[in-house]
């Protein structure tokens, strides 16, 4: 396993040179509160475009919270409050006048538990485009095939597009959800432990898919699986108790952690 991970890190190393990376998402002094609970403390980070950034850390440290700040899903929680700046392509998504509904079209999200809608496979993929005004069958057909192909699902489902998506296996459902997210053409895809409900084979498929997707999207993935972070991510951010402890290329983070807390965590001393 270790052998394999090191090999992966080596390939990432040759592709990634942080000096040339353009930031896509930047957090400046982000503090986040659930009511009186201080869930994120002074988070500063810049996540590069067209790369995979993994968020790791012990459970309850604020990974999901931070992820959900990026598409403003936390807005729905009563009493939540964000201060500081969260910039996507240089513009603050929390600035007055930004419409979170419109924002979410550009920043897609894949959830921990696959959540296909109770409708056909076709309608699941067509859902987003339809919401955004695409009505023509021919146009939708193209989108559905393209997204299902990209998520390596087309061959498995092309003969049963009109069947309920709930009949698919967990891994297929999650790939369907990724395809559904792609169908609205986002720039960023956020994934919150997308493999935690899946078996190892399905997990591997999703990781392959992520590697493919970063050519087109900027990806932020929450994972509690350190091997997964090493396999899938170019960059890794380590959170603890609401603080961003360390952010670096995945290679540096795992070979040469700067902070003792990071070292302790990745060597499994607590978690």
């Amino acid at each position, binding site marked *: 396993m270790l052998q394999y991970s090191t090999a992966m890190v080596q390939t990432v190393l040759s592709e990634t040179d942080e000096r040339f990376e353009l930031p896509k998402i930047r957090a400046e002094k982000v503090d986040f509160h659930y009511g009186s609970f201080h869930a994120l403390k002074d988070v500063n980070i810049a996540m590069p475009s067209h790369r995979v950034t993994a968020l790791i850390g012990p459970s309850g440290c604020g990974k999901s919270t931070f992820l959900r700040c990026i598409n403003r899903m936390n807005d729905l929680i009563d009493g939540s409050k964000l201060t500081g700046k969260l910039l996507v392509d240089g513009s603050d998504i929390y600035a007055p006048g930004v419409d979170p509904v419109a924002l979410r079209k550009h920043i897609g999200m894949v959830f921990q538990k696959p959540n296909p*809608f109770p409708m056909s496979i076709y309608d699941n993929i067509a859902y987003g485009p339809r919401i955004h005004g695409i009505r023509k069958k021919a146009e939708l057909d193209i989108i559905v095939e393209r997204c299902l192909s990209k998520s390596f699902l087309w061959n498995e489902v092309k003969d049963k597009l009109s069947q*309920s998506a709930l009949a698919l296996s967990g891994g297929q459902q999650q790939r369907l959800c990724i395809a559904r997210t792609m169908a609205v053409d986002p720039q960023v895809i956020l994934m919150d432990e997308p493999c935690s409900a899946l078996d190892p084979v399905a997990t591997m498929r999703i990781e392959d898919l992520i590697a493919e997707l970063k050519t087109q999207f900027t990806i932020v993935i929450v994972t509690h699986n350190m091997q997964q972070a090493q396999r899938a991510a170019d960059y890794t951010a380590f959170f603890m108790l609401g603080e961003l402890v360390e952010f670096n290329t995945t290679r540096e983070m795992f070979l040469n952690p700067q902070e003792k807390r990071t070292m302790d965590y990745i060597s499994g001393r607590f978690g």
Partner: protein
Amino acid sequence: MATIPADRTPSTIPTKSKFRWDDGIFRSLTTAAGGAVLAIVIITAYQLVTGSLPALEKEGLGFLTGSSWNVGEELFGSLPFVWGTTISSILALVLGGSIGVMLSAFLVELAPKWLLKPIGFLVDLLAAIPSIIYGLWGILVLIPFLRERVFPEIHAVFGWTGLFGEKSTGTGLLTAGIVLAIMIIPTVAAITREVLLVVPRNMRDGALALGANRTEALKTVMLPYASGGILGALILGLGRALGETMAVAMVIGNSATIESDLFKPAASLASNIATEFGEAGPLQKSALIGLGLILFILALALNFAARMLVARVRRKSGVQ
């Protein structure tokens, strides 16, 4: 190679379950209760059939197809009441059902959280009001209001359809439908609220994450997810409307006629049984029991259809 030792004998795993007398009692009690329910249904059906036999024998098929009910001439055709029950119930379902579903959808998803409890409580309260009160309110408040203010307006705009005539006393099919609608709102709203509240959070979040707004998420994901349950709610509401007696008898006008004009008086199966039974002669009594039999069959058929429909909707969407 490892050798596997022989099984220890005798095995310690019990093979015979211990008799438990309390379990036995519980089982016989529940069996008895189930049996009693079935027996009641069968006895009711039997008595409705035997009770209505004299009238059925005299009228033959005409009991079902005849459109005149004239006690003096001993003519008993049930069609006017079937018409009255069906139309008033459908009106109730359309008006009350849509209001009930929309009210709950609004409360659960769109309204501020603090509104859910108090309005939910008020709606539940509607269900606790005895139907005679609805009837009184219908006579004292609703009928004059409809007659003076509403019906003339409806006639002016939609009179050409023939459904809304010029003259009205205020009693009639539409009035009955409106009162029934108000009576079924709490049933529909309460069940819809429950089924919407148990729609998994991640359904709504999934839609929102794709850039849907809350109304879109509600309409396109949550309501379809809950459709089986909402259908059940509507059917329970319809069932209540079909059988409602007192309030209908007080506002429908009690006239055994079939008119396409919804402003005209009519009568329903249940309301007619209630108004005539007290002073009915033997044959008339038998005919009224026959109306009861029709209502009974209607209710059973509705229930059966409802179950099939709910199962089909569930199967189609894949929601268990």
